[in-house]
Protein backbone atom coordinates (compact mmCIF):
# COMPACT_ATOMS: atom_id res chain seq x y z
CA UNK A 1 0.00 0.00 0.00
CA UNK A 2 1.21 3.49 -0.85
CA UNK A 3 2.31 5.34 2.30
CA UNK A 4 0.23 8.39 3.19
CA UNK A 5 1.33 11.85 2.11
CA UNK A 6 0.66 13.20 5.56
CA UNK A 7 0.73 11.41 8.86
CA UNK A 8 -0.07 13.43 11.96
CA UNK A 9 0.86 11.73 15.23
CA UNK A 10 -0.24 13.00 18.64
CA UNK A 11 -0.21 16.61 17.50
CA UNK A 12 -0.75 19.13 20.24
CA UNK A 13 -0.68 22.91 20.42
CA UNK A 14 -0.74 25.22 23.42
CA UNK A 15 -0.43 28.96 23.35
CA UNK A 16 1.70 30.56 26.02
CA UNK A 17 0.42 34.05 26.67
CA UNK A 18 3.27 35.72 28.52
CA UNK A 19 1.38 38.92 29.27
CA UNK A 20 -1.34 37.06 31.16
CA UNK A 21 1.01 34.29 32.23
CA UNK A 22 -1.45 31.74 30.85
CA UNK A 23 -1.11 28.50 28.94
CA UNK A 24 -4.03 28.04 26.54
CA UNK A 25 -4.38 24.53 25.08
CA UNK A 26 -5.85 24.51 21.59
CA UNK A 27 -5.27 21.06 20.12
CA UNK A 28 -4.56 17.89 22.01
CA UNK A 29 -3.40 14.46 20.92
CA UNK A 30 -4.55 14.65 17.32
CA UNK A 31 -3.63 11.76 14.99
CA UNK A 32 -4.74 10.99 11.43
CA UNK A 33 -3.44 10.42 7.91
CA UNK A 34 -4.09 12.00 4.53
CA UNK A 35 -3.57 10.05 1.31
CA UNK A 36 -3.08 10.94 -2.29
CA UNK A 37 -6.40 11.64 -4.04
CA UNK A 38 -8.25 11.44 -0.74
CA UNK A 39 -9.95 14.07 1.35
CA UNK A 40 -9.71 13.89 5.11
CA UNK A 41 -12.23 16.09 6.90
CA UNK A 42 -11.80 17.45 10.39
CA UNK A 43 -15.00 17.78 12.38
CA UNK A 44 -15.76 18.75 15.93
CA UNK A 45 -17.31 21.53 17.96
CA UNK A 46 -16.01 25.07 18.10
CA UNK A 47 -12.84 25.12 20.21
CA UNK A 48 -11.81 21.62 19.20
CA UNK A 49 -8.77 23.15 17.43
CA UNK A 50 -9.63 22.23 13.84
CA UNK A 51 -8.03 25.37 12.34
CA UNK A 52 -5.13 24.99 14.74
CA UNK A 53 -4.32 21.65 13.15
CA UNK A 54 -4.31 23.14 9.64
CA UNK A 55 -2.13 26.05 10.73
CA UNK A 56 0.19 23.65 12.55
CA UNK A 57 0.71 21.67 9.36
CA UNK A 58 1.31 24.86 7.38
CA UNK A 59 3.61 25.96 10.24
CA UNK A 60 1.79 29.23 10.79
CA UNK A 61 1.63 27.80 14.30
CA UNK A 62 4.64 26.13 15.87
CA UNK A 63 3.49 22.70 17.10
CA UNK A 64 3.87 22.02 20.83
CA UNK A 65 3.75 18.23 20.65
CA UNK A 66 3.69 15.34 18.22
CA UNK A 67 4.98 14.69 14.74
CA UNK A 68 3.70 15.87 11.37
CA UNK A 69 5.29 13.51 8.87
CA UNK A 70 5.08 14.66 5.29
CA UNK A 71 6.25 12.65 2.28
CA UNK A 72 7.44 15.00 -0.45
CA UNK A 73 7.32 14.55 -4.22
CA UNK A 74 10.76 12.92 -4.13
CA UNK A 75 9.52 10.37 -1.58
CA UNK A 76 11.51 11.83 1.31
CA UNK A 77 9.78 11.96 4.64
CA UNK A 78 10.23 14.94 6.90
CA UNK A 79 8.66 16.16 10.10
CA UNK A 80 7.01 19.51 9.40
CA UNK A 81 7.16 20.26 13.12
CA UNK A 82 10.95 20.30 12.93
CA UNK A 83 11.66 21.26 9.31
CA UNK A 84 13.74 24.37 8.68
CA UNK A 85 12.02 27.59 7.68
CA UNK A 86 13.49 27.37 4.21
CA UNK A 87 12.24 23.81 3.79
CA UNK A 88 8.78 24.96 4.76
CA UNK A 89 8.90 27.92 2.37
CA UNK A 90 9.96 25.60 -0.43
CA UNK A 91 7.13 23.17 0.33
CA UNK A 92 4.65 26.04 0.42
CA UNK A 93 5.93 27.18 -2.95
CA UNK A 94 5.86 23.77 -4.62
CA UNK A 95 3.72 21.27 -2.79
CA UNK A 96 1.44 22.49 -0.02
CA UNK A 97 -1.43 24.91 -0.55
CA UNK A 98 -3.65 26.56 2.03
CA UNK A 99 -7.01 28.19 1.38
CA UNK A 100 -8.15 30.33 4.28
CA UNK A 101 -10.96 32.79 4.71
CA UNK A 102 -8.48 35.65 4.72
CA UNK A 103 -6.74 37.19 1.79
CA UNK A 104 -3.56 39.21 2.09
CA UNK A 105 -2.53 40.75 -1.17
CA UNK A 106 -0.95 43.83 -2.60
CA UNK A 107 -3.28 46.76 -3.14
CA UNK A 108 -2.44 47.17 -6.81
CA UNK A 109 -2.29 43.59 -8.01
CA UNK A 110 -4.98 42.54 -10.45
CA UNK A 111 -7.12 39.58 -9.39
CA UNK A 112 -5.90 37.57 -12.36
CA UNK A 113 -2.30 38.02 -11.19
CA UNK A 114 -3.17 37.28 -7.55
CA UNK A 115 -4.58 33.95 -8.69
CA UNK A 116 -1.75 33.24 -11.14
CA UNK A 117 0.91 34.08 -8.53
CA UNK A 118 1.76 30.47 -7.55
CA UNK A 119 2.37 29.67 -11.22
CA UNK A 120 4.59 32.75 -11.61
CA UNK A 121 6.58 31.29 -8.73
CA UNK A 122 7.14 28.16 -10.79
CA UNK A 123 8.36 30.21 -13.71
CA UNK A 124 5.29 29.50 -15.87
CA UNK A 125 4.98 32.10 -18.65
CA UNK A 126 2.79 35.03 -17.60
CA UNK A 127 0.24 34.69 -20.39
CA UNK A 128 -0.14 30.98 -19.83
CA UNK A 129 -0.51 31.45 -16.06
CA UNK A 130 -3.15 34.15 -16.54
CA UNK A 131 -4.99 31.94 -19.02
CA UNK A 132 -5.22 29.19 -16.40
CA UNK A 133 -6.31 31.75 -13.76
CA UNK A 134 -9.05 32.99 -16.08
CA UNK A 135 -10.35 29.44 -16.59
CA UNK A 136 -10.57 28.86 -12.83
CA UNK A 137 -12.24 32.19 -12.13
CA UNK A 138 -14.86 31.64 -14.79
CA UNK A 139 -15.47 28.11 -13.48
CA UNK A 140 -16.18 29.76 -10.11
CA UNK A 141 -18.44 32.30 -11.79
CA UNK A 142 -16.45 35.35 -10.72
CA UNK A 143 -17.62 38.13 -13.08
CA UNK A 144 -14.99 38.88 -15.69
CA UNK A 145 -15.14 42.64 -15.07
CA UNK A 146 -13.49 41.99 -11.67
CA UNK A 147 -10.48 40.13 -13.03
CA UNK A 148 -8.41 43.19 -13.79
CA UNK A 149 -8.97 44.96 -10.47
CA UNK A 150 -7.45 44.26 -7.07
CA UNK A 151 -9.47 41.94 -4.82
CA UNK A 152 -8.90 44.38 -1.93
CA UNK A 153 -12.39 45.81 -2.39
CA UNK A 154 -14.19 42.52 -3.03
CA UNK A 155 -17.05 41.07 -1.00
CA UNK A 156 -16.42 38.04 1.24
CA UNK A 157 -17.74 35.62 -1.36
CA UNK A 158 -15.69 37.13 -4.15
CA UNK A 159 -12.54 37.08 -2.07
CA UNK A 160 -13.13 33.49 -1.12
CA UNK A 161 -13.28 32.51 -4.77
CA UNK A 162 -10.04 34.35 -5.46
CA UNK A 163 -8.47 32.47 -2.57
CA UNK A 164 -9.76 29.14 -3.81
CA UNK A 165 -8.60 29.78 -7.35
CA UNK A 166 -5.15 30.69 -6.07
CA UNK A 167 -5.08 27.54 -3.94
CA UNK A 168 -6.18 25.32 -6.80
CA UNK A 169 -4.16 26.77 -9.68
CA UNK A 170 -0.84 25.06 -9.00
CA UNK A 171 -2.50 21.72 -8.20
CA UNK A 172 -0.59 21.23 -4.95
CA UNK A 173 0.17 17.73 -3.67
CA UNK A 174 -1.44 18.62 -0.36
CA UNK A 175 -4.19 21.20 -0.04
CA UNK A 176 -5.43 22.52 3.27
CA UNK A 177 -8.96 23.95 3.15
CA UNK A 178 -10.45 25.98 6.00
CA UNK A 179 -14.18 26.38 5.40
CA UNK A 180 -13.71 27.01 1.68
CA UNK A 181 -17.41 27.52 0.91
CA UNK A 182 -18.47 29.40 4.04
CA UNK A 183 -19.30 32.70 2.35
CA UNK A 184 -20.58 31.33 -0.95
CA UNK A 185 -24.15 31.06 -2.19
CA UNK A 186 -25.34 27.49 -2.85
CA UNK A 187 -24.86 27.66 -6.61
CA UNK A 188 -21.31 28.96 -6.44
CA UNK A 189 -20.53 26.57 -3.59
CA UNK A 190 -21.64 23.74 -5.87
CA UNK A 191 -19.16 24.88 -8.54
CA UNK A 192 -16.37 24.97 -5.97
CA UNK A 193 -17.22 21.49 -4.70
CA UNK A 194 -17.06 20.23 -8.28
CA UNK A 195 -13.60 21.75 -8.62
CA UNK A 196 -12.49 20.15 -5.35
CA UNK A 197 -13.67 16.77 -6.61
CA UNK A 198 -11.86 17.32 -9.89
CA UNK A 199 -8.63 18.18 -8.09
CA UNK A 200 -9.03 15.17 -5.83
CA UNK A 201 -9.47 12.96 -8.85
CA UNK A 202 -6.22 14.36 -10.23
CA UNK A 203 -4.44 13.15 -7.11
CA UNK A 204 -4.28 16.08 -4.71
CA UNK A 205 -4.46 15.03 -1.07
CA UNK A 206 -6.75 17.26 0.96
CA UNK A 207 -7.33 18.11 4.56
CA UNK A 208 -10.47 20.16 5.03
CA UNK A 209 -12.78 21.76 7.51
CA UNK A 210 -16.30 22.20 6.15
CA UNK A 211 -19.05 24.35 7.51
CA UNK A 212 -21.87 22.03 6.43
CA UNK A 213 -22.00 18.39 7.54
CA UNK A 214 -23.50 17.42 4.17
CA UNK A 215 -20.40 18.75 2.40
CA UNK A 216 -18.27 16.54 4.61
CA UNK A 217 -20.48 13.58 3.84
CA UNK A 218 -20.24 14.25 0.12
CA UNK A 219 -16.50 14.83 -0.20
CA UNK A 220 -14.69 13.20 2.70
CA UNK A 221 -12.94 9.86 2.36
CA UNK A 222 -12.01 9.89 6.03
CA UNK A 223 -13.53 11.88 8.86
CA UNK A 224 -11.54 12.75 11.97
CA UNK A 225 -13.50 14.01 14.94
CA UNK A 226 -11.65 16.32 17.28
CA UNK A 227 -12.65 16.97 20.86
CA UNK A 228 -11.78 20.14 22.74
CA UNK A 229 -8.61 19.63 24.77
CA UNK A 230 -9.08 18.82 28.47
CA UNK A 231 -9.41 21.96 30.49
CA UNK A 232 -5.86 22.21 31.74
CA UNK A 233 -5.90 25.96 31.72
CA UNK A 234 -3.74 26.49 34.71
CA UNK A 235 -1.67 29.30 35.87
CA UNK A 236 2.01 28.74 35.27
CA UNK A 237 2.68 29.91 38.78
CA UNK A 238 0.80 26.94 40.11
CA UNK A 239 2.85 24.63 37.93
CA UNK A 240 6.05 26.17 39.18
Amino acid at each position, binding site marked *: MIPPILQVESYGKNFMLHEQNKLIPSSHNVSFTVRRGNLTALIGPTGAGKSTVLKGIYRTYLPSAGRILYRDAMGHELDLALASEHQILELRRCEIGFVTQFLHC*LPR*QATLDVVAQPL*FGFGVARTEARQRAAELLSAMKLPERLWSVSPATFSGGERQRVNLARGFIAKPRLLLLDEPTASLDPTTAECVLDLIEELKAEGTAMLAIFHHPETTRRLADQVVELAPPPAVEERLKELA
Partner: protein
Amino acid sequence: MNKILEVRNLSKIYGPGCPQCLDSTGPESDTNLCPHCRSVVAIHGVSFDLFEGEILGVMGESGSGKSTVVKALYFDQAPSGGEAIFYDSPANAPEGKHDKQHNLFALNSAQQRWLRNHRFGMVYQNPNLGLNFNISAGGNIAERLLMSDLMDYGAIRERAKALLERTEVLLSRVDDLPKDFSGGMQQRVQIAKALATQPPLLFLDEVTTGLDLSVQARILDLILEIQQELKTAMVVVTHDLGVIRLLTGRAIVMKYGRVIETGLTDQILEDPQHAYTQRLVASAL
Protein backbone atom coordinates in the same frame (compact mmCIF):
# COMPACT_ATOMS: atom_id res chain seq x y z
CA MET B 1 17.66 27.36 -3.40
CA ASN B 2 21.08 28.75 -2.70
CA LYS B 3 22.29 30.75 0.20
CA ILE B 4 23.33 34.27 -0.73
CA LEU B 5 24.25 35.69 2.65
CA GLU B 6 25.36 34.15 5.90
CA VAL B 7 25.67 36.39 8.94
CA ARG B 8 27.25 35.09 12.13
CA ASN B 9 27.52 36.81 15.49
CA LEU B 10 27.47 40.29 14.08
CA SER B 11 28.21 42.84 16.75
CA LYS B 12 28.63 46.60 16.97
CA ILE B 13 29.61 48.41 20.14
CA TYR B 14 29.93 52.18 20.31
CA GLY B 15 32.33 53.22 23.03
CA PRO B 16 35.29 51.65 24.78
CA GLY B 17 33.53 48.43 25.75
CA CYS B 18 34.24 46.50 28.94
CA PRO B 19 34.05 42.86 30.05
CA GLN B 20 30.63 43.49 31.59
CA CYS B 21 29.07 45.13 28.51
CA LEU B 22 27.46 42.02 27.09
CA ASP B 23 26.06 40.75 30.38
CA SER B 24 24.72 44.15 31.36
CA THR B 25 22.82 44.88 28.15
CA GLY B 26 20.15 43.27 26.01
CA PRO B 27 16.45 42.47 26.40
CA GLU B 28 16.84 41.03 29.92
CA SER B 29 18.64 44.12 31.14
CA ASP B 30 16.13 46.30 29.27
CA THR B 31 18.84 48.55 27.88
CA ASN B 32 21.58 48.65 25.26
CA LEU B 33 23.66 51.06 27.33
CA CYS B 34 26.35 49.45 29.46
CA PRO B 35 26.02 50.90 32.99
CA HIS B 36 29.71 50.24 33.69
CA CYS B 37 31.47 51.89 30.77
CA ARG B 38 28.60 53.77 29.08
CA SER B 39 29.21 51.94 25.80
CA VAL B 40 26.22 51.31 23.55
CA VAL B 41 25.86 47.69 22.48
CA ALA B 42 23.98 48.48 19.27
CA ILE B 43 23.92 44.85 18.14
CA HIS B 44 25.41 41.65 19.43
CA GLY B 45 25.33 38.02 18.31
CA VAL B 46 23.13 38.66 15.29
CA SER B 47 23.10 35.63 13.00
CA PHE B 48 20.89 34.74 10.06
CA ASP B 49 20.93 33.23 6.57
CA LEU B 50 19.42 34.74 3.48
CA PHE B 51 18.61 32.71 0.38
CA GLU B 52 18.52 33.83 -3.25
CA GLY B 53 15.36 35.75 -4.06
CA GLU B 54 14.16 35.69 -0.45
CA ILE B 55 12.87 38.66 1.54
CA LEU B 56 13.86 38.65 5.19
CA GLY B 57 12.29 41.11 7.59
CA VAL B 58 14.20 42.64 10.49
CA MET B 59 11.68 44.06 12.93
CA GLY B 60 11.91 45.90 16.20
CA GLU B 61 11.38 49.30 17.77
CA SER B 62 13.80 52.18 17.53
CA GLY B 63 17.03 51.41 19.33
CA SER B 64 16.69 47.69 18.67
CA GLY B 65 19.73 47.82 16.37
CA LYS B 66 17.86 46.70 13.27
CA SER B 67 19.26 49.47 11.06
CA THR B 68 22.76 48.85 12.37
CA VAL B 69 22.57 45.34 10.93
CA VAL B 70 22.07 46.51 7.34
CA LYS B 71 24.44 49.43 7.71
CA ALA B 72 27.19 47.03 8.73
CA LEU B 73 26.41 44.70 5.84
CA TYR B 74 26.38 47.59 3.36
CA PHE B 75 29.76 48.76 4.77
CA ASP B 76 28.33 52.03 6.06
CA GLN B 77 29.59 51.19 9.54
CA ALA B 78 32.32 48.71 10.34
CA PRO B 79 31.09 46.11 12.84
CA SER B 80 32.98 45.43 16.07
CA GLY B 81 32.83 41.70 15.54
CA GLY B 82 31.26 38.85 13.66
CA GLU B 83 31.37 37.53 10.15
CA ALA B 84 29.31 37.77 7.01
CA ILE B 85 29.79 35.69 3.87
CA PHE B 86 28.27 36.80 0.59
CA TYR B 87 27.84 34.01 -1.95
CA ASP B 88 27.86 35.60 -5.36
CA SER B 89 26.83 33.58 -8.36
CA PRO B 90 30.03 32.60 -10.17
CA ALA B 91 28.82 34.13 -13.44
CA ASN B 92 29.01 37.50 -11.71
CA ALA B 93 32.46 37.17 -10.22
CA PRO B 94 34.61 40.14 -11.24
CA GLU B 95 36.96 39.59 -14.10
CA GLY B 96 40.07 37.74 -13.05
CA LYS B 97 38.50 36.73 -9.75
CA HIS B 98 37.12 33.24 -9.65
CA ASP B 99 36.22 33.47 -6.02
CA LYS B 100 32.51 33.79 -5.66
CA GLN B 101 32.54 33.78 -1.87
CA HIS B 102 33.25 37.06 -0.18
CA ASN B 103 34.09 37.26 3.50
CA LEU B 104 32.68 40.77 3.79
CA PHE B 105 34.58 42.18 6.73
CA ALA B 106 37.90 40.67 5.70
CA LEU B 107 37.90 42.56 2.38
CA ASN B 108 39.87 45.75 1.84
CA SER B 109 37.97 48.95 1.25
CA ALA B 110 38.33 48.81 -2.54
CA GLN B 111 36.87 45.30 -2.61
CA GLN B 112 34.07 46.40 -0.31
CA ARG B 113 33.34 49.36 -2.54
CA TRP B 114 33.26 47.07 -5.57
CA LEU B 115 30.64 44.85 -3.93
CA ARG B 116 28.67 47.86 -2.76
CA ASN B 117 28.56 49.30 -6.25
CA HIS B 118 28.08 46.15 -8.25
CA ARG B 119 26.37 43.51 -6.14
CA PHE B 120 24.52 45.30 -3.33
CA GLY B 121 21.89 47.98 -3.28
CA MET B 122 20.60 50.11 -0.42
CA VAL B 123 17.50 52.19 0.01
CA TYR B 124 17.61 54.43 3.08
CA GLN B 125 14.75 55.85 5.10
CA ASN B 126 16.29 59.28 4.53
CA PRO B 127 16.67 59.88 0.78
CA ASN B 128 19.43 62.35 1.64
CA LEU B 129 21.68 59.39 2.45
CA GLY B 130 20.99 57.48 -0.72
CA LEU B 131 20.76 60.33 -3.20
CA ASN B 132 22.97 63.25 -4.09
CA PHE B 133 20.53 66.15 -3.96
CA ASN B 134 22.82 68.39 -6.01
CA ILE B 135 22.62 66.29 -9.14
CA SER B 136 19.61 65.29 -11.19
CA ALA B 137 17.61 62.11 -10.71
CA GLY B 138 19.15 60.74 -13.89
CA GLY B 139 22.61 61.82 -12.70
CA ASN B 140 22.13 59.87 -9.49
CA ILE B 141 21.49 56.71 -11.44
CA ALA B 142 24.31 57.55 -13.85
CA GLU B 143 26.68 57.77 -10.88
CA ARG B 144 25.98 54.19 -9.91
CA LEU B 145 26.32 53.00 -13.50
CA LEU B 146 29.58 54.91 -13.89
CA MET B 147 30.84 53.28 -10.71
CA SER B 148 30.34 49.96 -12.41
CA ASP B 149 32.35 51.16 -15.40
CA LEU B 150 29.61 51.68 -17.94
CA MET B 151 31.16 54.50 -20.01
CA ASP B 152 28.69 55.07 -22.82
CA TYR B 153 26.62 58.24 -22.33
CA GLY B 154 23.77 57.11 -24.55
CA ALA B 155 23.55 53.73 -22.85
CA ILE B 156 23.69 55.32 -19.39
CA ARG B 157 20.94 57.74 -20.33
CA GLU B 158 18.73 54.98 -21.71
CA ARG B 159 19.25 52.78 -18.68
CA ALA B 160 18.54 55.66 -16.27
CA LYS B 161 15.32 56.43 -18.11
CA ALA B 162 14.27 52.80 -18.19
CA LEU B 163 14.88 52.47 -14.43
CA LEU B 164 12.94 55.63 -13.62
CA GLU B 165 10.13 54.46 -15.85
CA ARG B 166 10.12 51.11 -14.07
CA THR B 167 9.94 52.82 -10.70
CA GLU B 168 7.20 55.09 -12.01
CA VAL B 169 9.03 58.37 -11.92
CA LEU B 170 7.81 60.72 -14.65
CA LEU B 171 10.37 60.75 -17.44
CA SER B 172 9.90 64.48 -17.81
CA ARG B 173 11.61 64.78 -14.42
CA VAL B 174 14.72 62.77 -15.22
CA ASP B 175 16.84 65.93 -15.28
CA ASP B 176 15.31 67.56 -12.20
CA LEU B 177 16.97 67.66 -8.82
CA PRO B 178 15.61 65.10 -6.35
CA LYS B 179 15.35 67.76 -3.67
CA ASP B 180 12.36 69.13 -5.60
CA PHE B 181 10.60 65.74 -5.53
CA SER B 182 7.94 64.46 -3.13
CA GLY B 183 9.00 61.96 -0.46
CA GLY B 184 7.48 59.04 -2.32
CA MET B 185 9.15 60.06 -5.55
CA GLN B 186 12.51 60.40 -3.81
CA GLN B 187 12.16 56.82 -2.60
CA ARG B 188 11.39 55.72 -6.15
CA VAL B 189 14.53 57.41 -7.42
CA GLN B 190 16.48 55.74 -4.61
CA ILE B 191 15.07 52.36 -5.59
CA ALA B 192 15.89 53.00 -9.25
CA LYS B 193 19.44 53.92 -8.27
CA ALA B 194 19.83 50.87 -6.08
CA LEU B 195 18.62 48.65 -8.90
CA ALA B 196 20.81 50.25 -11.55
CA THR B 197 23.39 47.47 -11.48
CA GLN B 198 20.79 44.72 -10.99
CA PRO B 199 22.22 43.65 -7.66
CA PRO B 200 21.26 40.22 -6.35
CA LEU B 201 21.08 41.64 -2.82
CA LEU B 202 19.16 44.70 -1.69
CA PHE B 203 18.92 46.33 1.74
CA LEU B 204 15.83 48.39 2.54
CA ASP B 205 15.94 50.47 5.71
CA GLU B 206 12.51 51.78 6.78
CA VAL B 207 11.79 52.79 3.19
CA THR B 208 8.13 53.63 3.68
CA THR B 209 8.37 55.27 7.09
CA GLY B 210 6.98 58.77 7.06
CA LEU B 211 5.17 58.43 3.75
CA ASP B 212 1.41 58.73 3.23
CA LEU B 213 -0.41 55.41 3.42
CA SER B 214 -1.38 55.39 -0.26
CA VAL B 215 2.19 56.23 -1.25
CA GLN B 216 3.47 53.50 1.09
CA ALA B 217 1.23 50.93 -0.56
CA ARG B 218 2.52 51.79 -4.02
CA ILE B 219 6.16 51.63 -2.93
CA LEU B 220 5.56 48.23 -1.34
CA ASP B 221 3.86 47.05 -4.51
CA LEU B 222 6.84 48.22 -6.51
CA ILE B 223 9.32 46.45 -4.23
CA LEU B 224 7.43 43.18 -4.45
CA GLU B 225 7.04 43.43 -8.21
CA ILE B 226 10.76 43.99 -8.53
CA GLN B 227 11.50 41.08 -6.26
CA GLN B 228 9.35 38.83 -8.43
CA GLU B 229 10.79 40.13 -11.69
CA LEU B 230 14.47 40.14 -10.77
CA LYS B 231 14.50 37.56 -7.95
CA THR B 232 16.44 40.01 -5.81
CA ALA B 233 17.16 38.87 -2.26
CA MET B 234 16.24 41.57 0.22
CA VAL B 235 16.73 42.44 3.86
CA VAL B 236 13.85 44.70 4.88
CA VAL B 237 14.28 46.67 8.09
CA THR B 238 11.07 48.08 9.51
CA HIS B 239 9.07 48.65 12.67
CA ASP B 240 5.86 48.37 10.63
CA LEU B 241 4.21 44.96 10.97
CA GLY B 242 2.11 45.66 7.86
CA VAL B 243 5.27 45.97 5.80
CA ILE B 244 6.62 42.78 7.35
CA ARG B 245 3.41 40.90 6.54
CA LEU B 246 3.18 42.11 2.96
CA LEU B 247 6.80 41.80 1.93
CA THR B 248 8.61 39.15 3.88
CA GLY B 249 8.64 35.37 4.04
CA ARG B 250 10.75 35.14 7.18
CA ALA B 251 11.52 37.64 9.88
CA ILE B 252 13.78 38.21 12.85
CA VAL B 253 12.67 40.22 15.85
CA MET B 254 15.23 42.38 17.62
CA LYS B 255 15.27 44.11 20.96
CA TYR B 256 18.12 46.05 22.51
CA GLY B 257 20.57 44.76 19.97
CA ARG B 258 19.78 41.06 20.24
CA VAL B 259 17.69 38.71 18.13
CA ILE B 260 14.93 37.46 20.40
CA GLU B 261 12.87 35.55 17.88
CA THR B 262 13.14 34.29 14.34
CA GLY B 263 10.67 32.41 12.18
CA LEU B 264 8.31 32.36 9.25
CA THR B 265 6.59 35.73 9.03
CA ASP B 266 3.04 34.38 9.37
CA GLN B 267 4.17 32.31 12.34
CA ILE B 268 5.76 35.31 14.06
CA LEU B 269 2.63 37.38 13.53
CA GLU B 270 0.10 34.69 14.44
CA ASP B 271 2.00 32.57 16.95
CA PRO B 272 4.72 34.76 18.44
CA GLN B 273 6.78 32.92 21.04
CA HIS B 274 8.60 35.65 22.93
CA ALA B 275 6.75 37.86 25.39
CA TYR B 276 8.08 40.97 23.68
CA THR B 277 6.94 39.84 20.22
CA GLN B 278 3.51 39.00 21.62
CA ARG B 279 3.26 42.52 23.00
CA LEU B 280 4.49 44.00 19.73
CA VAL B 281 1.98 42.03 17.65
CA ALA B 282 -0.88 42.60 20.08
CA SER B 283 -0.29 46.34 20.12
CA ALA B 284 -0.39 46.50 16.33
CA LEU B 285 -3.76 44.77 15.96
